[in-house]
């Protein structure tokens, strides 16, 4: 629904004044007086704190839980106005703000909301996601980490794996088995706990790309407060699935890997350049050369063309999903393909990138390769995880077949 334009205009006027008075000079471009000072850590902290005080770090959450209480229209204005002064809306814990927060709003009790949501908004707590286990990957519901009630606490034993940034996190939202006798989906609970307690061991995992943003986390008699169990006891699977929906939606707009693969629905239709360009083709040009204005390698050129065509269509599909939602139509069916398609597209982009670089795409470190080449090589390796993390492509195809197409079990 379109909002009355007067109220949006009033919001914009008030917001401009706020941004103007509160955004540190070094974090806008150009600064008010035309200078460009180097931002300090204090500048970033000040900006985050001032925005958080208004709830703008989690702009759509209700004000009573620390959020900004903004409508979609106001949120768009917030982003526009921040961009207008060359600044940005500060981000807080990705897992907290984008995944945990929405499910707490939907499933948590009042006390839990009041305790945890404002801390996310203020960026006080870094959250991580305790989902996969060594024995429970695609079959997530087969998880074995146990939680046993002991007075006001649960005692947790087991292990989680592929926990992004656990080594830099304060708290974990975690799926635990609270009823081992029930059918596997019916014995799972969703619980929150502090990682800085005895019995937690966190080991970063080195990936084929050399990066270590994933960890394995071990629990040995870890005590978690029972009041932080979210939703009904043994009713965690519903929450787990809802959170995965948020995760898959996020993964449709960003994937770690090579280059700027993500088409951005909010900007794509508005800022169409007069002369469209291909990032992949520009990357390839110095390595493969040109003939009659075309890339000299026709097979590579065709792969790039197909990729660009797919990216164009994918961006339009994101746009259509937004248009359909605005028109009040159900969009569940198409959003289920976004994670699948985006991850396969991102992997293909990385493969094409290495084909374009040739043997200059084989550098690991040291001399003979420039930093971009090495980043591309490592990004190519990292991209292989795109179709595994957050639900494998095979799981995504199962979801489409079952939930969208209604094919039988």
């Amino acid at each position, binding site marked *: 629904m379109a909002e009355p334009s007067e109220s949006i205009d009033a919001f914009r006027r008030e917001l401009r004044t706020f941004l103007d008075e509160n955004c540190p000079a070094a974090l806008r471009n150009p600064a008010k007086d035309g200078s460009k000072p180097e931002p300090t850590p204090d500048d970033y902290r000040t900006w985050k704190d001032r925005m958080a005080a208004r709830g703008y770090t989690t702009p759509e959450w209700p004000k009573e839980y620390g959020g900004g209480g903004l409508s979609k229209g106001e949120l768009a204005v917030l982003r526009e106005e921040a961009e207008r002064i060359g600044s940005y809306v500060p981000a807080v814990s990705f897992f907290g703000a984008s995944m945990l927060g929405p499910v707490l709003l939907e499933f948590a009790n009042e006390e839990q909301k009041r305790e945890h949501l404002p801390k996310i908004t203020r960026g006080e707590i870094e959250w991580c996601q305790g989902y996969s286990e060594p024995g429970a990957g695609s079959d997530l519901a087969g998880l074995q980490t146990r939680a046993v009630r002991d007075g006001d606490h649960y005692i947790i034993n087991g292990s989680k794996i592929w926990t992004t940034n656990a080594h830099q996190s304060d708290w974990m939202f975690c799926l635990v088995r609270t009823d081992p006798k029930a059918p596997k989906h019916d014995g799972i609970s969703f619980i929150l706990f502090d990682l800085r307690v005895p019995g937690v061991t966190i080991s970063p995992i080195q990936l084929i790309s050399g990066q270590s943003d994933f960890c394995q986390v071990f629990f040995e008699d870890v005590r978690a407060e029972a009041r932080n169990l979210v939703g009904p006891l043994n009713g965690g699977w519903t929450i787990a699935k809802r959170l995965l929906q948020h995760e898959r939606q996020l993964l449709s707009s960003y994937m770690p890997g090579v280059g700027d693969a993500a088409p951005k629905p909010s900007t794509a239709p508005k800022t169409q350049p007069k002369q*469209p360009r*291909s990032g992949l083709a520009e990357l390839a040009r110095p390595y493969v050369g040109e003939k009659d204005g075309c890339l000299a390698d026709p097979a590579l050129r065709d792969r790039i*063309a197909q990729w660009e065509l797919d990216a164009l269509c994918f961006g*339009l*599909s994101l746009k259509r999903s937004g248009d359909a939602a605005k028109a009040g139509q159900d969009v569940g069916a198409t959003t289920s393909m976004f994670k699948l398609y985006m991850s396969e597209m991102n992997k293909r982009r990385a493969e094409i990138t290495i084909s374009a670089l040739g043997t200059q795409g084989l550098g690991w470190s040291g001399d003979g390769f420039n930093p971009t080449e090495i980043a591309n090589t490592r990004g190519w390796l990292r991209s292989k995880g795109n179709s595994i993390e957050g639900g494998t492509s095979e799981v995504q195809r*199962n979801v489409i077949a079952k939930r*969208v197409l*209604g094919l*039988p079990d």
Partner: protein
Amino acid sequence: MALVLTEEQELLRESAADFLAENSPVTHLRALRDGDDETGFSKAIWKNMAELGWTGIVFPEAVGGAGLGFAELGVVLEECGRTLAPYPFLSTVLLGGRAVLLGGSQAQQEAILPGVCSGDRLLALAFQEKAHFRPYDVETKAEIAGDGYRLTGEKIFVLDGHVADQLIVAARTAGSNGEREGITLFVVDRASDGITIQRTRMVDSRNAARVSLDGVAVESGAVLGEVDAGADILESVFDGAAIALSAEMLGLVKEVFERTVAYLKTREQFGARIGSFQALKHRAAEMFCEVELSNVITLDALRAADAGRDGLSRLASAAKARLSDAASLITCEALQMHGGIGMTDEEEIGLFLKRAKTAELTLGDAAYHRDRFARLTGF
């Protein structure tokens, strides 16, 4: 512009679906084929379509059209694609008619387009000479003779040329084969001396013609647009036609996909419905993605054509490339998943496969359009 149908467009879609279900279901095409109908479609039904306003959707009211746009025409063509309605929208409206609209003088428009809108006049565009679509490959000569020209050459794959009242002929007034400059368009009556039109029956049960021009005399008033600058008109005509054909293919793709999913839910083998087998589920999921991407690129291209957006040619090629590949993928998968029954003439999947192949190779296949898309993206 939003990539969803407006309420009016949704009503148009429903009325088109109703009309086609009654007048041109897939069995209608089969009956025309089996009866070796000399026209290849029913002129009475075409006239009905004209009365519904479909033939004039993209033409201005001044020449009897509805003054609507590609978005609306696309809605109708998508429904035509679902029932394989073999009606001459491409030849008469999108190739012949739009060439006259974009290139013709006011006098030419007034003489030709009202008949197109009323369904009384059929047109065809005679441009292709070789087996592959290359818009500047024109060897047919137009030599100055007195106040006019004499046309000599051979045209193939002239869609609906066997029944067209008038042909728009691309001929060379300058330059040589493959050059963009030097192509001129002429309006030629089918009854002119020196024309031989030979009907060619195609795999999709539609028709084209081989047109032989042996010193056909035309007056200078038959020139459409500027002499030597016919390629300007042709490019716009081809872009619009590729987008419209994509809309027809989209309907075909959706129909075949839906029929296939329905078959997966009912056909039983090994004591189970075959849609429960993961080997088929995953391919169905891939097809679902392909249908969605085909849908959005077509909707966007139709809207871009109406808005006269920059980069329309690039979008036209994106749409035709995607739909050519999607139609091929989905008809081939549909046939495989239908098993032996899909190989029979009685089952309709084969009819869709045949139309998909013809549409794929009409106005350039996927490889042609990807190449053009790349060029228009600066590589």
